[in-house]
């Protein structure tokens, strides 16, 4: 708590919320100054590790339902920038940190293939900035600060995606498209913030929430909300606004794809959740109507259509990019139920899908180290020559489908429970149908991996590459068996948000 800080004594425990964000931010410029390839890997890895450590401490502190606040520069909240950690964002901080650690382990060997050597330092610096941005968005309780961090992460993401141009020039146009869409999204977002500031004169979430409820039915606030929903819809790739995502994921370097797929869209979704529940009042009719008439149909369309499209994609990165769209559909669906259970399922799915998708993309990346491309045909027979990678891939795939015993099952089960609990029978059926589509496209790959003869023989990738893949696969299973971390924290978070 802010008041607990005793001035003049060094007590880092009280500074955890800010340390979480500035650790990578501090390391990024140091990397550029040092300009050494190996050292920058090591430093970023250590930085990410520190973030992970901090996020674990944070999650422990807030897992009893308490809230941790931190005022930047010593200025008290409504005026100064406030960082606010509760169950909802601590779980995301954890997700982002751990994924970044794992992804960095993987990058040690994969980056040599995908990015020219002289750019490695800058790549890591960019990566850390992206990490800073994502962590900042999640940690802060100041809406303009959200925008700033969102831009930090987005701008560095554009750069990271463009790095794929070393292998495939199309990464440039993908990145450019992403840039245009992302910028429009950010603009909309900032317009929304502007409207809110206009109506309430405040930028602090808690403060706004109070003032909004005092204002009553304000057109300005409602228009602001509309802009924020569309802006965040763009960032989180809600279905008609998703056009940037498949190409960005496909052509970005594996490391980036893993990281983005696991974190970036989730963070945008988190912002949306935050705004709906902490800034606006979810009981207001305009929020409910929007969710019922727009977000839910769009989420369902995403779930079904994106899964169907994924089935027909030959490029596996693209296939999983579309599958990500479908999964985002699940999360949006959970949110659009506007119930505690639905929200909890959304949060759990964010984490579970983060691990699952990272595992899938990373094992694809490992395949790619050998095959140089990820067209489905080039994976023929790899199940035998790369048994460990393939096994990890299968685990990830099972989790994506939602097979019991894997993380994916937990979140789908919760979502089903929530949908049925709200009385949407048809939605529940559609969730299952969409899972069946997932079975089809995962099966297609398994078939190629294990049931066809390979024309070329490859060797298994090295241990350092395998380790992160298996850590992720382990999480896919671990989170399916031990749900105390995810489900309990998510329930707590949903409870807090619904207060």
């Amino acid at each position, binding site marked *: 708590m*802010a008041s607990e*800080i*005793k*001035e*003049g*004594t*060094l*007590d880092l425990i009280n*500074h955890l919320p*800010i*340390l979480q964000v*500035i650790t990578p*931010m*501090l390391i*990024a*410029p*140091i*990397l*550029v*100054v040092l*300009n050494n390839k190996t050292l920058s890997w090591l430093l970023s890895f250590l930085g990410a590790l520190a973030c992970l450590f901090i996020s674990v401490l944070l999650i422990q502190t807030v897992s009893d339902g308490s809230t941790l606040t*931190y*005022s*930047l*520069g*010593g200025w008290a909240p409504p005026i100064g920038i406030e960082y606010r950690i509760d169950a909802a964002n601590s779980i995301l901080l954890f997700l982002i940190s751990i994924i970044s650690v794992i992804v960095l382990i993987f990058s040690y060997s994969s980056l040599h293939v995908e990015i020219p050597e002289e750019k490695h330092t800058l790549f890591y*610096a960019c990566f850390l900035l992206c990490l800073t941005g994502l962590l900042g968005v999640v940690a802060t309780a100041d809406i303009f600060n959200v925008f700033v961090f969102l831009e930090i992460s987005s701008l560095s993401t554009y750069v990271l995606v463009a790095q794929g141009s070393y292998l495939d*020039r199309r990464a440039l146009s993908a990145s450019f498209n992403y840039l245009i869409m992302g910028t429009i999204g950010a603009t909309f977002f900032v317009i929304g913030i502007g409207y809110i500031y206009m109506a309430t004169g405040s930028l602090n979430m808690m403060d706004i929430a109070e003032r909004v409820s005092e204002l009553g039915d304000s057109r300005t606030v409602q228009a602001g909300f509309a802009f924020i929903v569309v802006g965040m819809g763009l960032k989180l790739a809600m279905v008609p606004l998703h056009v940037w995502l498949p190409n960005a994921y496909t052509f970005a370097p594996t490391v980036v794809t893993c990281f983005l797929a696991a974190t970036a869209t989730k963070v945008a979704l988190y912002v949306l959740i935050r705004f709906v529940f902490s800034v606006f009042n979810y009981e207001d009719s305009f929020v409910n109507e929007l969710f019922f008439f727009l977000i839910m149909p769009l989420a369902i369309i995403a779930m079904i259509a994106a899964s169907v499209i994924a089935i027909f994609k030959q490029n596996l990165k693209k296939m999983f990019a579309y599958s990500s769209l479908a999964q985002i559909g699940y999360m949006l669906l959970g949110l659009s139920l506007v119930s505690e259970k639905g929200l909890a399922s959304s949060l759990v799915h964010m984490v579970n899908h983060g691990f699952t998708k990272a595992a899938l993309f990373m094992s694809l990346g490992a395949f790619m180290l050998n095959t140089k491309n990820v067209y489905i045909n080039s994976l023929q027979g790899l199940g035998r020559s790369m048994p460990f990678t393939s096994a990890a891939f299968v685990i990830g795939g099972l989790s994506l489908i939602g097979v019991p015993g894997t993380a994916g099952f937990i979140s789908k089960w919760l979502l089903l429970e929530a949908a049925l609990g709200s009385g949407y029978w048809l939605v529940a059926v559609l969730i299952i149908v969409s899972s069946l589509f997932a079975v089809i496209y995962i099966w297609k790959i398994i078939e190629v991996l294990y049931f066809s003869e390979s024309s070329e023989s490859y060797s298994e990738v090295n241990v350092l590459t395998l380790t992160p893949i298996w850590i992720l696969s382990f999480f896919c299973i671990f989170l399916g068996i031990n749900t105390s971390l995810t489900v309990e924290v998510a329930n707590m978070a949903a409870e807090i948000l619904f207060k």
Partner: protein
Amino acid sequence: MKHHLILKVITKFMVGVIVLFGLYVQFHGDYSPGGGFQAGVIISAAFILYGIVMGLKNVQKVMPVWFAQKAAAVGVLVYALTGVFSLIFGFEFLNYHAISPEHPKHGQHYGIILVELGVGITVSFVMIAIYYSFAGRTPRLDDKEW
């Protein structure tokens, strides 16, 4: 640009003045309109002007690429370390009181100057770096190949 003698001469005069003006904006940022961002842009404008008139090679003699990149990073570091400084002394991040606990107002003053300095350095060198990468870009592909 051999024959653009006037431009060249004027530029040599202007560069110093622009930088000076930039520094003015920088250090008066806490009293008058201005601050690190504006100052950074103004200072970088001096280098960019020099580059446009004298050519990329010449400006890069004055300001090498590696230096621009690293200096930009150093700017961020100045900013961040100011914050960490107060953090180490047991205040909140970016709480300038830490710089001079006895006289908090002085602390505020120094703190803002430091932070603005960081911003100014970063912005100016980032601008320069952006100019370099645009100006130094030679298309790897012919138009036909697109």
